[in-house]
């Protein structure tokens, strides 16, 4: 049978690839949005928000993503939210988890901008929101880019955990193929290669953006 079996299964692998990619991109968008908001609010040290944001961060950073995913998937069923799709459950869990980690990247990036920038911006009359929008965040972007892309690459691989709640991403499709044709080593090598094909271009793009930012 040899590799022919894997080639014959390429349609299934492609479905897994598309599902992994979809979940990754959706999580990157939502997780970054959540992380940005939480990071900015934490850096702003607003007294009323301090404790709740800290609790969110520590809970989701301090427990395994797999447990969160199972909790949300089965928790939704327990609450009577029947028929919550595996995609939605995986996306919610990933967004909350990655959002917590990304918020720390943004917070650190914001705090790395020298204090004098904020003071100069206040002195010319910018509002709190305008200071973040026009002065701090554009400078934060170049600082956070490398760790952010690192986080995204980790995130793509984290989507593999969605296999545990039955989302048909790459690993689950791979197991389906193995169930049919065997050859686990070969199948997992192909799957690992597909993850690499998703992640490596992200490294390249990050490197290019970083270079461009240095020239500006």
């Amino acid at each position, binding site marked *: 049978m040899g590799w022919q079996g894997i080639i014959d299964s390429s349609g299934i692998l492609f479905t897994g690839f598309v599902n992994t990619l979809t979940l990754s991109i959706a999580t990157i968008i939502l997780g970054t949005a959540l992380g940005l908001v939480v990071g900015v609010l934490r850096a702003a040290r607003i007294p009323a928000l301090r404790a709740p944001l800290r609790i969110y961060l520590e809970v989701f950073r301090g427990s395994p993503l797999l447990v969160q995913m199972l909790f949300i998937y089965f928790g939704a069923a327990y609450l009577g939210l029947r028929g919550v799709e595996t995609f939605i459950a995986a996306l919610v869990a990933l967004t909350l988890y990655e959002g917590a980690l990304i918020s720390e990247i943004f917070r650190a990036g914001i705090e790395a901008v020298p204090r*004098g*920038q904020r*003071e100069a911006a*206040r002195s010319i009359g910018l509002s709190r929101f305008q200071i973040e929008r026009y*002065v701090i965040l554009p400078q934060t972007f170049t600082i956070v880019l490398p760790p952010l892309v690192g986080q995204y690459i980790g995130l793509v691989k984290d989507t593999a955990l969605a296999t545990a709640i039955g989302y048909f991403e790459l690993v689950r499709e791979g197991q389906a193929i193995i169930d049919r044709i065997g050859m686990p080593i070969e199948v997992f090598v192909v799957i690992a290669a597909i993850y690499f094909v998703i992640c490596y271009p992200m490294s390249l793009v990050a490197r290019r953006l970083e270079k461009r930012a240095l020239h500006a």
Partner: protein
Amino acid sequence: MTMIELKNVHKSFDDLEVLKGVDLAVEKGEVVIIIGASGSGKSTMLRVINNLEPIQGGEVWVKGIPIHDPKRADEVHQYVGMVFQQFNLFPHLTALANVTLALQKVKKIDAGEARRMGVAALKRVGLEDKAGAYPAELSGGQQQRVAIARALALEPDVMLFDEATSALDPELVGEVTGVMRQLAEEGMTMLVVTHEMGFARDVGDRVVFIDEGQIAEEGPPAILFTSPSNPRTKQFLYRVLHR
């Protein structure tokens, strides 16, 4: 007309009291030079006026507005411009964009008009040909002149200079003090914290010596520099003039 008035201002950082009851009044058009040893509280005084530091006691009035009232504190930025030791230009924006940012976002002036005003402000500091340059492409002296233009573009009534030349190489100090001289001649009200005693003597209408968080002595430069009455002033001047 009194532009700035400090009444018994107290400022502490945790347990350290930096301003211990400062009283000061600055009239329109006056150039007041503030001198003192490092850690004496002179920079803190400027920062208090510009609402960058909350105070623990006393009153700060700018153009009749109570800056010590948190509800009105931000109004100070409509009337007061500040220039910092480290320039604090926005590194991701060109010189012109540094100058026009607040014109567009705070004063809501449209892009074309803001651009015209920005170029005019850069012209006042002799840098209209550097409008498109990023801060990293400018010398320290040029960066500080852009920072002055950024403040001037908003047409402030008072300019605060916090050791504006201290971070510059010696040969670049002159171009910045030159712009400051020109401003003084045009009648700008200025508070200048500086170690440039030549500038202080030539341009200052009044020199204020701060020592350990209090105004120890003040007077016209001709008198304060030649015959100070306070022994602490004498000691300080001796140290800085005989380096």
